[in-house]
């Protein structure tokens, strides 16, 4: 063989090696540039982390999404176990990165700011996911610096539950228990609460602080944090006024010590819940409680109501969970397919229909499903839900279907956990009598802003 042929052979071999190497590098590129998963995913395994308790609704959608992945030839590894920061960090440290992570939406900003999650722009594009189908407030919770980092799943909205029996006994019309007029609400609170022999035996109106403090601040139309999640607004005039007012509702019961000690005895999720036992007159609560009450106390007399702002308009605070793709995931394309399926209208409708049928067979009420997918909620309500025949729960369903329209959520922040803890600690200092609202929220503001500045 002449040296020319040898040179040509060598050149060709080198070129072939370069092509192979380039192909290998391309396949190892981060998911952002990867193509849509086709039916050639054999040998791959989608690893999922954080999916803990699985009821019929979760399991039904998991089955649907798993089938979608298996149709591509890939497998799904999805061990039962809720999201835990420590375990997730340990997996990151061991480079055992799960493809898909299921976590509270309130954590997304913190992880996104630390580069642990992948923005979903390409996922939305490649899988043709319409982001408009998701609730705007839920999307705000999972967006950071203009990028979407998770697909929102379930949604809990806050409405007020009034115990009709307690109201009747106190001579208060349930219709008059409203957050619109704070002076009237305080009067009602004083009438509704009951103290016997020095012991608190019934709570009047539980404002549920510190958990729902953002809702009380929203009463003014104000927010605790800027829309971009980078500026804390904890010591505004509105925040201080909201804390002073909600604290006054608790003080009417004889103080936080007595109030909390009594509330800690409640079993919200059993048949002896505080509404049945007449221990609680009214409170804002997450939407899932209606489902629990319909199961455990189907004959309970309650009036579901919107939490209203100072102009009488409904407002509600959303929270829930979401699906995110971890940076370094081996199969981001499969992860995208899976979460699309978990949050798709058809998946929600399929499991809603199954639950409706199951509940019907069991003679139990179906109080609807409340998701972050607007379209799914509407279709479930219109196509599957049927009136329960108990006014209190039918009214609750009507309310919950309408509520997300008036929803807001705390926008994601690079220091979500510290921000939340700062205002919770501030409110707790006031409740414990250690500081007045202004002092407590000034301190909270400093702590929260410092944490955000350090993290951004």
């Amino acid at each position: 063989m002449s040296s020319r042929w040898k040179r040509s052979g060598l050149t060709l071999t080198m070129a072939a090696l370069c092509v192979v190497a380039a192909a290998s590098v391309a396949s190892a590129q981060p998911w952002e540039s990867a193509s849509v998963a086709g039916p050639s995913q054999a040998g791959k395994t989608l690893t999922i982390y954080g999916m803990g308790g699985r009821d019929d609704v979760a399991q039904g959608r998991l089955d649907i999404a798993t089938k979608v992945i298996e149709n591509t030839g890939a497998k799904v590894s999805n061990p039962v176990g809720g999201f835990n920061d420590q375990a997730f960090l340990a997996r990151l440290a061991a480079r055992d990165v799960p493809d898909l992570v299921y976590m509270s939406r309130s954590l997304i900003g913190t992880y996104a700011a630390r580069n642990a999650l992948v923005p979903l722009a390409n996922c939305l594009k490649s899988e043709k996911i319409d982001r408009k189908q998701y609730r705007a407030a839920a999307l705000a919770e999972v967006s950071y610096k203009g990028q979407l980092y998770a697909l929102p799943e379930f949604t809990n909205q806050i409405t007020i539950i009034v115990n009709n029996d307690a109201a009747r006994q106190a001579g208060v019309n349930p219709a008059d228990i409203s957050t619109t007029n704070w002076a009237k609400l305080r009067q009602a609170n004083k009438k509704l609460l009951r103290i016997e022999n020095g012991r608190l035996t019934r709570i009047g109106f539980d404002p549920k602080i510190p958990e729902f403090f953002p809702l009380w601040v929203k009463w003014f139309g104000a927010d605790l944090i800027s829309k971009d999640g980078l500026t804390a607004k904890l010591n505004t005039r509105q925040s201080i006024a909201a804390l002073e007012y909600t604290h006054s509702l608790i003080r009417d019961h004889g103080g936080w010590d007595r109030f909390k000690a009594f509330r800690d005895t409640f079993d919200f999720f059993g048949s002896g819940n505080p509404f049945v036992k007449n221990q609680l007159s009214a409170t804002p609560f997450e939407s899932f409680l209606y489902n629990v009450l319909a199961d455990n106390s189907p004959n309970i007399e309650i009036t579901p109501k919107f939490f209203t702002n100072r102009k009488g308009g409904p407002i509600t605070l959303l929270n829930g969970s979401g699906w995110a793709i971890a940076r370094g995931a081996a199969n981001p394309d499969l992860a995208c397919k899976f979460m699309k399926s978990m949050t798709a209208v058809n998946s929600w409708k399929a499991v809603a229909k199954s639950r409706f049928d199951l509940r019907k067979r069991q003679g139990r009420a179906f109080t609807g499903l409340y998701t972050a997918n607007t379209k799914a909620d509407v279709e479930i309500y219109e196509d599957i839900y049927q009136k329960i025949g108990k006014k209190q729960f039918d009214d609750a369903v009507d309310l919950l279907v309408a509520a997300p329209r008036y929803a807001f959520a705390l926008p994601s922040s690079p220091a979500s956990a510290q921000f939340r803890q700062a205002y919770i600690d501030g409110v707790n200092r006031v409740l414990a009598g250690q500081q007045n609202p202004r002092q407590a929220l000034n301190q909270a503001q400093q702590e929260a802003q410092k944490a955000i500045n350090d993290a951004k």
Partner: protein
Amino acid sequence: MATVTSNEAPGSPRRARRWLTGFRERETWVAYAFILPWAFGFLALTLGPMIASFYFSLTDYGVQQIAGFESTSYIGAENYSNLLDDPRISLALKNTFTFTVMMVPGTMIVALALAMILLRVGRSGDFFRTIFYLPQITPPVAAAILLLLLFNGQVGAINRGLDLIGIQGPFWLTDPSWIKPSLVILSVWSVGGTMVIYLAALRGVPQQLYEAAAMDGASPFRRFRNITLPMISPALFFTFIVLTIAGLQAFTEAYVAFFGAGQTGAEAPDAALFYAVYLFRQAFEFFEMGYASAMAWLLFAIIMVVTIVNVVVSRRFVFYQGAQK
């Protein structure tokens, strides 16, 4: 306890030679073989992480660095200087010291009292020893849940009991002044381990000392003060050190009852913010691993200083039989 004295200066060449000669003996190899698993555990699971945490305390180690997305940057003593600016550090230290100061003597006094009673109850002693030891084997998480049930200000068993004797109990779990005492009482409840140590020490006190003292007309209190306490002082000292360290590292009960997964995170009273709880939150809730490592080293330094002071002070009070003064 007998002590071996040597005239050789530590580290002298003669001593080193003797140490090396020991390896000619098979027993030496066997002895080291037995020590090896512990040595490996100490190096790999204690010393290694300690060195790593000291390194992390000088860096910006966080989620990005854990996952390998960003390199770890050396930031010098910044984490340590931030400790001085963080008002929650002083709050957490104050809470932890207050808890320790109440818990250590409380546990020692109750444990000693129980041990002395057990010494006198004869055959039923074994039964009561088991009963008193049971709380010790209760998982701390369960104990924390028990705390919430027992100490509820309105319906808890403690306040109901106090009600029966006409005392209105405090709001243990919500009143900041009573949160730490309630955790101390819970710790004292788990007094079984300390009690068993005291029981063994009390059984080791020669009876003839009591008999001689009784013949000299010494009162029971004098016998307790002048015989029992000096004779069991090594056990008292040991438990004092161990309980002090445990107090300064207190975590589980406070975390589970006020901060943990069972809570909404909305409880979190300042009065229950112990140092180890704050450290855990910095590391695993706020992901400030470098800062948390610096916190861990501050706690280590505090524990070292406290222990050294205790050891130095103890020389005046602890009596070792057979020891040379």
